[in-house]
């Protein structure tokens, strides 16, 4: 297991390195650099040159990349071009804010979706199952921003029960009660989105397992249905669900640009959109890097959980399997 982990980590580092190279090249290949966005057309050539030099944009690309990489190895994510602010100072608060929002929504949806999916698998096409289907269709089909606006219109503007947007009321930063009030609407929107997928997955995964021979055997042995479901079926049914969850982990930091925009949540998704338009390369690189790290962690976690859940997967003997 340890050997496996070390190998996976080394592979991951290589993958990360390649991702940064490719991203760096792609970002710079996009036409219209920060100079175009930022400089006044009337600025003299001389002044433009000085500004480019101040931003470090007059260096060849490989040098710019190495500088960036060098900074990264020292834990320095660089500075914004426009106003020379440290990237970390802008980025880390938004990462945290996004995780608060997405984490809550994700946790809630798992909490509801997995038991509900399991329940529905035992009562196929029952009322609860039909309801879940309808909700799933809604969750998939309804644009998140539209649903968000409807909720705002009703609960914030008409009824005046909940805050319209933002993470905190100004002057009440840090008060947990205030945060919860602000979380309700965006979490509702996001949870519905997650829920739609997870209920379906857990139901179908469970149904598949329930048709296996060993379940029939278990039932034939005269085991109680409760025991069949929870002891025999559930562990196996969880495996594909874990895969999905692992793969979805990056959404926790990166997936909510639209919801964040509608609810004016100061998160990373919104930051990415802003910074892409402004061609703030160092912020974009940092966000890509964080997302990549989380994708890798997500995959790794999923693999480790397999081992814990699935008796058929054993690492170390033949070098392990990866998902």
């Amino acid at each position, binding site marked *: 297991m340890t050997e496996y982990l070390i190998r996976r980590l080394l592979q991951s580092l290589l993958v990360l390195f390649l991702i940064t190279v490719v991203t760096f090249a792609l970002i710079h290949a996009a036409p*219209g650099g920060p100079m175009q*966005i930022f400089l*006044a*057309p009337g600025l003299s050539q001389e002044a433009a040159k*000085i500004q480019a030099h101040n931003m470090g944009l007059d260096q060849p690309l490989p040098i710019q990349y190495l500088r960036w990489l060098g900074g990264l190895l020292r834990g320095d994510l660089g500075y914004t071009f426009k106003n020379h602010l440290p990237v970390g100072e802008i980025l880390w608060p938004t990462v945290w804010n996004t995780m608060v929002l997405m984490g809550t929504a994700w946790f809630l949806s798992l909490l509801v979706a997995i038991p509900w999916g399991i329940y529905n698998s035992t009562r196929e096409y029952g009322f609860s199952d039909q309801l879940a289907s309808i909700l799933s269709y809604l969750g998939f089909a309804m644009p998140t921003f539209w649903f968000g606006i409807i909720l705002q219109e009703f609960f914030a*503007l008409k009824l005046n029960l909940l805050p319209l*947007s933002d993470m905190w009321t100004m002057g009440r930063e840090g008060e947990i009660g205030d945060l919860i009030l602000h979380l309700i609407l965006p979490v509702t929107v996001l949870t519905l989105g997650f829920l739609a997928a997870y209920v379906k997955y857990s139901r179908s995964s469970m149904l598949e397992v329930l048709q296996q021979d060993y379940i029939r055997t278990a039932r034939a042995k005269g085991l109680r249905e409760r025991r069949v479901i929870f002891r025999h079926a559930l562990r196996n049914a969880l495996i594909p669900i874990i895969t999905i969850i692992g793969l979805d982990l990056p959404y926790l930091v990166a997936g909510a640009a639209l919801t964040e925009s509608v609810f004016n949540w100061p998160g990373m998704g919104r930051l990415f959109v802003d910074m892409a338009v402004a061609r703030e390369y160092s912020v974009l690189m940092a966000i890509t890097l964080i997302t990549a790290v989380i994708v890798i962690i997500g995959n790794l976690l999923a693999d480790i959980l397999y081992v814990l859940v699935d008796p058929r997967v054993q690492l170390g003997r033949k070098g392990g399997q990866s998902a």
Partner: protein
Amino acid sequence: MRKAKKWAATLAVLLLAGAVAAGCGNSAPSSTGTPSSSQQGNATPQTGNGTAEKPVDGGTLTFSSFSDIVSVNPLFVQDTASGDIVYLIFANLYDLDRQGKIAAKPWSLAAELPQVSEDGKTYTIKLKENAKWSDGQPVTADDVVFTINTILNPETGSPLTNQFDKVESVNKLDDHTVQIKLKQVYAPFQYSLYNQIVPYHVLKDVKPKELQNHPFGKDPAKTVTNGAWKWSEWKQKQYLTFDANENYWGPKPHIQKIVMKIYADQNTEVQALLKGDTDLIQAIPVTQVEAVKARGNINVILAPGPQYEYISFNFDPKNFPDQFVPFASQKARQAIAYALNRQGMVDNVLKGTGTVMNAPFLPGSWADPGDAAVKYDYDPEKAKQLLKEDGWTPGPDGILQKDGHRFSFELQYNAGNSRREQVAAVIQQNLKDVGIEVTPKAIDFSSWIDQNVNPGKYPAILLAWSLTNPDPDQEQIFSSKYFPPKGQNTGWYKNPKLDELWVKGYSTIDQNERKKIYAEVAKEISTDLPYVFLYQYGQPEGLGPRVHFAEEDRPEPSLAYGYFYHIINWWVDNK
């Protein structure tokens, strides 16, 4: 993300709209006069923010923006959000009156209008003796001299350089008097004095090339200012706060605290205005104006701002297939002007918040040429007649032909700008009606500016100029001295008569004389049409019910930053 592509596009559009304003905003080295409010008609508040009640001191005004600031160091401001803040926390040397003339107001640093010498080359500025910085130090002639010299130093890289490039020297006569000598007579220079100054005592030891990255302008604690409010806090991408400056020397503002809240886009801003989370938004999307008005308690100010939209023709044959410029002749361009239903665009696309233009001077400004400019009323028959006279005959596909060339060209604009998208479609239809084929093409804003607009490589573009400086001089846009890459005459337009008139315009000090010269410019340019001038446009400002001001202190949308006009005299309900 996939189901939300359209929204993302909308979002990008709004952000781009900001970039457009920034991109062609402060930059216009040349500028255009300002419409006077009396001629704007509906600039007057309609639902009663303008009131005769007695002002109340205290309270918080919240306004919103959909982009964060970059830096509020006045030497480097190039975007609207930062400009808004500079307007609140710095006093100007001179301010503007509603007609766009420079004025020494009670809150201006200058005590009186500048004295201009006989030969028109020396400006003497007298400062108010009681003006102070927020750290208590006096504002002196040293600050003015330092500011102008720093702007002129190319190492600084200040975007204001071209506003001051006619300056030969700047000298302190005494602690409160500054003398500026120009290299030549240059009338628009008076508007360069409508600017802020930076504190000499804080920045004197900073190397010019390090100024841009200096904390002054980014760290509230290190940004020493001299306006009615001072900067207290910056929570990046969320909000900025400002408190009344206890060292303020001018008339005390009624509003104690100002908050600028940053929203993701204009739609979110509108929601916040309706909820009361913000009291002032600078731009309500035209499609939402009716819905906002229907709520009853929001004051929507509908009046076009200091910006105009145009079609620019390119005269460089290299930009066309077969090296053939279809609109090379004056008659063809006039025909295009007649064929376009510009009033229709104002009524339908801008929902009335606009005024048709025939010359590059804003309607109602002091340089407005009125009837001197040729008017092109919507008249497709006349357009067809002109095209016929110009030798164009209908081809087999209904498109006009001349010497084996079809009258067909590409019209570029920035992707995602829904106003331009709609206007481009109207242009396409209008011109098709007279036998001209237009292919609208939307391109990502920054690539477009980089690869087509700035180098002058396009057949025709649909774009706008935003004019922060109310002087009518626009030599750098239309004179053949300013071809790309160094200038903004990106259509490679050459007209010796106009070249000469622009020079004459800025070399004359007397405003009445200048007005006559710009009337001549208007006549020539509206006859020759390097651009088809479309309309002055603007975005409706929204004011919440908490904001109050006397009638004479109402916002002035025709000026840059006019949504804050006389904000020092406004007050808010203390609820």
